[in-house]
């Protein structure tokens, strides 16, 4: 099945992804159960406002759009390919993806510069934060690099990467296309799994607790100690 591919490819694109996802699941769940207090966005807006705006807003808008794009391409490859069948639509998709990618990089660089220069913010930055920031920087830059130098990513992602990811999800790993991908793309894939791997140990967990009950819950929250039956 997979033995036709070199060992390091198997290690990077089969073994490691499973290790990363397993660590991610176990780590985040255990951390949530054992130490829920540590789940926080750890925002530093309170300490510095202006640079925060110029860094964090483009970064988050960018990364959310890019992530959603990746997930959609993973889940609905056929629809994406259909959309791409007309050149104009393909261009629109590619260009907006690139714009969001650039937005992410610019915002991230701004955020890093802010952490370096504002002394109050430096106080709440630890080694793990720097580690996460550099991972993200490498990942977003490699993403933009791929978008520019290996164009029509929306098409080949749907045609090649999506099947690879699905093969992993089905526990029937198939390295077919991935092993032939250019180095930049391979790096981007590998780094994605590195980030997934480290998530439980970093502030990235805040992504998992992004507000969701809010949109559906009633405005006021009341907690009772005595049983609810008694209380009308």
């Amino acid at each position: 099945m997979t033995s036709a591919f070199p060992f390091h490819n198997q290690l990077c694109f089969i073994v490691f992804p499973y290790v990363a996802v397993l660590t991610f699941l176990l780590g985040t769940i255990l951390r949530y159960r054992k130490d829920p207090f540590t789940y926080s966005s750890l925002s530093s807006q309170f300490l510095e406002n202006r640079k925060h705006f110029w860094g964090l807003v483009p970064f988050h808008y960018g990364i959310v759009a890019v992530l959603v794009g990746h997930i959609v391409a993973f889940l609905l490859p056929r629809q994406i390919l259909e959309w791409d069948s007309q050149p104009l639509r393909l261009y629109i998709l590619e260009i907006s993806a690139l714009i969001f990618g650039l937005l992410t990089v610019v915002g991230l660089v701004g955020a890093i510069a802010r952490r370096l220069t504002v002394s109050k913010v430096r106080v709440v930055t630890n080694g793990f934060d720097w580690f996460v920031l550099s991972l993200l920087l490498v990942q977003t830059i490699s993403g933009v690099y791929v978008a520019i130098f290996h164009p029509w990513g929306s098409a080949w992602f749907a045609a090649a990467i999506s099947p690879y990811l699905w093969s992993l999800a089905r526990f029937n790993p198939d390295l077919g296309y991935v092993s032939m991908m250019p180095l930049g793309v391979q790096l981007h894939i590998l780094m994605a799994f590195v980030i997934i791997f480290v998530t439980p140990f970093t502030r990235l967990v805040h992504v998992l607790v992004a507000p969701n009950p809010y949109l559906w819950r009633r405005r006021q929250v009341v907690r009772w100690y005595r049983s609810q039956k008694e209380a009308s």
Partner: protein
Amino acid sequence: MNVRSQVSMVFHLDKCIGCHTCSIACKNLWTDRRGTEYMWWNNVETKPGTGFPTKWEDQEKYHGGWEVKNGKLQLKSTSKAQTIFNIYHNPSMPTMDDYYEPWTYDYQHLFNAPEGTDQPTARPISMVTGELIQIEAGPNWDDDLGGSPVYAENDPNLKGLTPDQRAQLVAVERLVFFYFPRICNHCLNPACVASCPSGALYKRGEDGIVLVDQKRCRGWRMCVAACPYKKMFYNWNTGKSEKCILCYPRLETGQAPACFHSCVGRIRYLGVMLYDASKIEEMASLPDEDLVEAQRSLVLDPNDPEVVAAARKSGIHESVIESAQRSPVYQFVKVWKIALPPHIEYRTMPMLFYVPPMSPVMSNVADGTIHHVSDNLFHDIDESRVPLKFLANLFGAGHEEFVRYALRKQKAVRWYRRAVTVGDVEMATAERMLREADCSPEQAEAIYRLTSLCTFDDRFVIPPMHREEAIQMMEDPLEHKQGVGFGFLSGPRRGM
């Protein structure tokens, strides 16, 4: 009717001497940790003044509280849809500069300084960065009208005052001010709770105390912007929001909150009020001028058999109902109507009420002393040196009648007591004043007693909170024998 009970409060501003003992009691108990140094869950402001954080009452800047938009009650700072976009950067969020950068002094330098010709000094260092700083602001920076041209003159409550009235507040040698102690109001319609994207903020069903679940707070900071009183604080170290907890661990063991307990002027009262929770939203949506009355109408008469029956049906413990019947707060707010909610126009339905200050009683006319004019016994109230309009902006959504009513009644009580004890005022005059102020002699006597002669137990009627039963219901008490108390069993650790 959906009866709930609420631990409510009254601060009698005439008695506050501005000593800040309350703030210190609170700070020592709860906010001397890293990340909380700048927080003052209890603070005492000088009015007129811009307060803490600076200009917190300016909702054009902070967008706190609720507004009625298209007939619907909505948060000013954010809607649910906006939250999605503002969560990365909250545009209405105050920053540390709006409070102050906490500092200490480099005391070690006094001991370690090398020998030299000058005396070593202890220079201020930031408690955030540890670096030397220039102190530019602090809590109570404008205490007792310090820096009036910058602070007092920018008080948002001066809105609607004539230039004459403004000038009168700061006239040389006849300055006038009063103190305004503030804690979280543990509102009935809390904006902080409604704004929390994680549902971490909640109101305790049994006693109405508003708390942040530290384990669910994710540091989205929406509450900091939403609370119009700026009584939600962001702990920059742990990345969690914190607020006044009304010393619930003390209340649960029958003790008054630390700021209440330590209050030197004995201005603070605490007791249970029963209210109708089913009408909160409806009442909070009424026009500004109706809000004071609307909030009063939410408060139910604990002696009304119908209310008692409904309270029992809602599961309110007999002892709590009994406690509500003895509540000093109920008397001040609902029976005597001399305690008023602060800034009711923010529509959070605050459950901390203020008796507006009479002092200084001096008039603003002529030589500053009050001349008794027999045909209008209350003339000095409209001419008082703290313009009525100013008090009305604070305690009546800009409508003077509520404040006037409270002040007239207080004055009548004073004159009545003066007729009784000193005798230099005729009883007939005093009685006429009582009549005109809508007060019976019995009521005057009761107001006098609860204002001037109140003991600890008169001021604090703390309901039994029955937490022991609650805990028994949920967990095995033997198993949790050593786990009682407050907080975590491990120190709260900043996340990564």
